[in-house]
């Protein structure tokens, strides 16, 4: 069944879109990520113009994050105070990111920027995650049940403007969370992602937050930054395709529930290795496309 998307102005098979939403939903349910980093490139592949893909993914992530954060609220695994601090940085970052996006759009370099961001960040995160989870897997084979080390005292703890984050059991400066929020917000606006895949490791390794509150808190602030991004894209570029977002959503929410069930049956380390491999393969695909001579050197500018 073909469906004509009013903003993207292309006709796409609705089942392909449902399938895409579903696959990304399964992955996000399995790994606890928003899936924006997958859905945006996948939308490029099916022929959605990049500007529309980026804006619409932002809208779709709002829905999946709302769905996810509700479950975390019930389990009380959201650090609201940390969420608000991250958000303050996130909103500033979004506004900056949107400016960069629009300047490069005018220069015809949006695709390059988006792809480069993907290659660099997916590469770094994927590699780190793979190394870390392989090490964890080896450790768990050797001595099972070894407790995780207490958070180390790092430079992060020596900065001024300290604040108490009770749910995370932290007493740290507000500067690092604001910077983390800002960077993630900026990338979110450029890449059309929530930034969970950057935010989660940053919260664990830079801020030293306990793992159990990380995902809920990250989702909580992602709702607001992606909402802000959606509004900015809708207002400045008119590139949010509501029809596209709704179809992806339906596939996504069903997929997410299936994914959660699959996730429960697998070991955490295995899950992380799989996610790492997935992230790396998307990175390699996009990276190769930049290095290999394209078959058509010319393209028609989209304004």
């Amino acid at each position, binding site marked *: 069944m073909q469906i004509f998307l009013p903003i993207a102005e292309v006709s796409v098979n609705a089942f392909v879109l449902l399938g895409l939403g579903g696959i990304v939903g399964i992955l996000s349910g399995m790994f606890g990520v928003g899936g924006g980093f997958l859905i945006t490139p996948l939308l490029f592949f099916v022929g959605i113009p990049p500007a529309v893909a980026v804006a619409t993914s932002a809208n779709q992530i709002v*829905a999946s994050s709302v769905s996810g954060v509700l479950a975390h609220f019930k389990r009380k695994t959201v650090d609201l105070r940390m969420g608000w601090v991250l958000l303050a940085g996130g909103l500033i970052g979004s506004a900056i990111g949107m400016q960069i996006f629009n300047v490069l759009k005018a220069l015809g370099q949006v695709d390059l920027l988006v792809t480069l961001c993907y290659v660099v960040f997916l590469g770094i995160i994927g590699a780190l995650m793979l190394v870390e989870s392989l090490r964890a897997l080896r450790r768990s084979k050797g001595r099972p049940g070894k407790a995780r080390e207490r958070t180390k005292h790092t430079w992060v703890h020596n900065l001024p403007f300290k604040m108490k984050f009770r749910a995370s059991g932290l007493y740290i400066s507000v500067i690092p969370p604001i910077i983390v929020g800002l960077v993630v917000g900026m990338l979110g606006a450029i890449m059309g992602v929530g930034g969970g895949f950057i935010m989660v490791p940053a919260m664990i390794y830079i801020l030293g937050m306990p793992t159990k509150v990380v995902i809920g808190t990250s989702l909580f602030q992602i709702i607001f930054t992606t909402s802000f991004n959606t509004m900015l894209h809708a207002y400045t570029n008119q590139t949010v395709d*509501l029809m596209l977002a709704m179809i992806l959503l339906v596939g996504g*929410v069903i997929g997410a529930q299936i994914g959660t069930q699959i996730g429960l049956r697998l070991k955490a380390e295995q899950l992380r290795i799989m996610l790492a491999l997935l992230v790396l393969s998307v990175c390699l695909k996009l990276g190769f496309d930049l290095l290999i001579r394209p078959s058509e050197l010319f393209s028609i500018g989209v304004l």
Partner: protein
Amino acid sequence: MRVLLTSFLFALFAVELAAEEVVADLSQNRVSITANFDGSEILIFGAIKRDIAAPDDSDLDVIVTVMGPEKIETILRKDRRLGIWINVESEKLGLAPSFYSVAATRPVEDILNPLSDALWKITAEEQILSERRGLPAREALLRIRRDSGLYRRANDGVTLNQDTLFNTSIALPANLVEGTYITRILLARNGTVLDDYRTEIEVQKVGIERWLYNLAHDNAILYGLLSLFLAAIAGWGASEIFRILRR
């Protein structure tokens, strides 16, 4: 001199003009882009009206062109910089149609002499940015649009029966741009155009497509809020439904 030129042009088009005329109609003058729009097929049919008997020393041909709304096109060129392929050059080419289709009883090059083709702007070569011929960016535009099926030609797309009745069908693709599609039906003999008939096809989004598009452009803030509201409802709804199902 001017008199001479005028009479030359007159001779070129008009001498046989009165002899044979084209009468044509379209199956539809309006194409509505609905949510499940998947392209559209327009039938074009007609007849040749004659005051005198058709000459039998030459072949009669029919050419049908359909041209979509024009837009100033910009072409980007990629090149290798620091090992990666990036857009290095952008060039504003000028007005080019979003869609262009030529159908005829046989290849246009066989029907018309090059001068008539140029005067009437029939083939894509003549119609689209012909003043920038030879420019790599312009050739690229033609190539890309041809490859994606937006510039088409059907060499034997028109059926002509006993030099009197003709019909053809023009397939409009699914990724259609809104606007006015100018349709020309031309009659040719001896390498020149005898008569032409022009009509328009209106392509418009309707229903929810129209509504969403207008809202997104005229009331962007409201549209943004609506998108967020629906996303939040969907997210909340999904978690509620599955909570109930799991019980």
